[in-house]
């Protein structure tokens, strides 16, 4: 071995060691936040890249809108939002959450799109004593966490909300078709729970490989063969666009009633689906045309700021800011992660664009669910609330 090759070897090792030493400048262990005044750090953990980026953008918009409307303050304290990229996998999400809690030493964290990430970070927040006010992900198995709150829903609630309605309004067997990952399985399980209880009949239960399925034709062919009168589905993001378009192209729209969890037609995906989505029924905890004052103001402000109507993702994030606003204020001068968490438990009723709601013992909202239908509306398609599906939570 000649000496010329030695140098890159040494340099690389020195560079690696230097990089590690640099991270030490991020602060040693245990720097305490000023608990009575001064800015508070809140971590915003949302995807900034990958397939969930649009949800992350919506959640970021909702959060920032609330802060803008309150002069960048929550509970009378100046807020320093630390943005971290949740990425696409539980690994990247965990790593980002670790950075927020251990390096940035934030007071609380909000956001989280992926249920796998949420599962992965439960330990971090529970043992670290830092509250997580989640605004999207909500695995059904997360039932006794002290520091984890969700302002969105529980993953099986959209399905649960629809089950009884579909059993009463559809005369014949119903086919169940969902994306093959935990969220899809949870939605179908939730649907089956209330559907079977109300006397419904299931034609078949099929899961499509996720995220690799872009051609749904074989599954749609099987759906047609089954003779089902209606179908309950769960799809989100790009898969939702492909599914709805192909549902129409292969002749099922209008022949087999299509019921789904609201994500199928929420936000940008509806624009992409266009007229193909017409007549689809979905269940969601929010819609931009809900008739209450808070919502009208919210929708107007959101449209002015971002040029589009708000989605349930933005609304949940907006509510998370409100929760933290009220909790920080009531925690008063002695503001630590622990006291903040206790205060979150006492926030009571939240006056939200979706109506009023409050946390249950599980840390998830007790809220009303709405049935929406996709209809043509001023130059495009929109979800229109056509019925109420009752309260869950």
């Amino acid at each position, binding site marked *: 071995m000649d000496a010329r090759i030695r140098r890159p070897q040494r340099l*690389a090792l020195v560079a690696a060691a230097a990089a590690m030493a640099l991270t030490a400048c991020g602060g040693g262990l245990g720097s305490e936040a000023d608990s009575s005044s001064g800015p508070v750090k809140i971590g915003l953990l949302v995807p*900034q890249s990958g397939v969930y980026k649009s949800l992350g953008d919506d959640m970021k918009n909702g959060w920032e809108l609330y802060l803008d409307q309150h002069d960048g303050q929550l509970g009378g304290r100046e807020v320093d939002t630390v943005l971290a990229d949740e990425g696409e996998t539980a690994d990247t999400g965990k790593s980002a959450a670790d950075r927020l809690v251990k390096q940035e030493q934030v007071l609380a964290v909000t956001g989280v799109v992926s*249920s796998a990430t949420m599962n992965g970070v439960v330990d971090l927040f529970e043992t670290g004593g830092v509250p997580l006010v989640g605004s999207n992900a909500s695995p059904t198995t997360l039932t006794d966490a002290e520091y984890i709150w969700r302002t969105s829903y529980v993953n099986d609630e959209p399905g649960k909300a629809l089950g009884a309605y579909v059993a009463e309004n559809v005369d014949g067997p119903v086919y169940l078709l969902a994306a093959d990952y935990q969220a899809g399985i949870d939605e179908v399980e939730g649907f089956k729970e209330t559907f079977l209880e109300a006397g419904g009949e299931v034609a078949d239960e099929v899961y499509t490989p996720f995220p690799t399925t872009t051609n749904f034709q074989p599954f749609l062919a099987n759906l047609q063969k089954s003779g089902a009168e209606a179908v309950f589905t769960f799809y989100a993001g790009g898969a939702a666009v492909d599914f709805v378009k192909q549902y129409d192209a292969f002749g099922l729209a209008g022949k087999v009633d299509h019921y789904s969890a609201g994500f199928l037609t929420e936000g940008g995906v509806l624009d992409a689906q266009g007229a193909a989505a017409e007549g689809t029924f979905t269940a969601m905890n929010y819609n931009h045309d809900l008739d209450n004052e808070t919502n009208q103001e919210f929708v107007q402000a959101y449209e002015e700021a971002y040029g589009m109507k708000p989605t349930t993702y933005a609304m949940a994030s907006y509510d998370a800011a409100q929760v933290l606003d009220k909790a920080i204020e009531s925690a008063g001068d002695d503001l630590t992660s622990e006291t903040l968490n206790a205060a979150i438990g006492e926030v009571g009723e939240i006056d939200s664009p979706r109506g009023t709601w409050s946390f249950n013992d599980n840390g998830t909202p007790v809220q009303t669910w709405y049935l929406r239908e996709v209809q043509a509306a001023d130059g495009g398609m929109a979800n229109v609330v056509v019925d109420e599906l009752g309260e869950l939570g």
Partner: protein
Amino acid sequence: MNPVLARRLVGAGVLVVLLALPWMINPYAISTVSRILVFALLAISVNLLTGVTGLPTLGQSAYFGVGAYTGAIVATTVTAVGPVQMLLAALAGAVAAAVTGPVAMRARGVAFLMITLAIGEIAYTAAGRLDPITHGTDGFSGIPPVVPLPGLPPLVIDGLVYYYVLAGFLLLYAVVAVLLRSPFGLALRGLRDNEARLRAVGYPTTAFALTIYCLTGALAGAAGSLWTSAQRFVAPGDMGFQVAALALLAVIIGGLGSMWGSCVGAALVVLTRDYLGGYVAGHGPLLLGILFVLVVYLLPRGLAGTSWRRGSGRSRSRQEART
């Protein structure tokens, strides 16, 4: 200075830095280093197959995942003692490799690469579907903290977990180093350079290839259990195509055939994507792409160049004649 002495000094220096690290950096950074060490072990297992034996693979993440889930299952049902988890995980990895190896052994080069890709993808899909065992796509949580030796308290502090991972890393690194210096290790290099000739001289090349395949499966499995101990969470995403591809790329960057090169390559890939990527939220892959292009043109032989004792100066093209 005598090159061998220089190498030894650098090696000792690195060891000292690694031991002193928890006193120098914050808990988030130290947990990142733990993850880098585990990923480096995965890269070493890929290097053993690709760089040393000449079998390019995208399937090591499957055995890594098997080991990770085995470690999780053992930790939640049998014992929290780390070395036991590691042993069982290594065994599981070896068995998985033994079962799937013969399919791959029929091919060489790109066909071998694609078969290992298939193995990796099938394992990834299976992990997402076997809900009763793996807890499905939402991942396996609720794993208790690891106990380094029977009788010692469980490790909760990031710095202590790091020492456990470091111990595992050094142990496995030493084992592989010994293996590479053995006659078996030399035969593997012969496999890479000219399998037909080796077979003609009477070596049972297929048996050797299968053996190293199982050994690297065991190594990847052991690394998987260290991952579980460090993260206390396993999800199918920890064993997919992206992990396998990044491991292979880390080995290429580090220089095929070099163990320490694979480690530094692994560190570089993880730091680029996660640390630097943290500053340009959402553009981690862009930084990785730039890293790859720069390395290909500026470091034609990877970070390590040629680093095995015999046959130094051998060019990459000969080394890869059969990939």
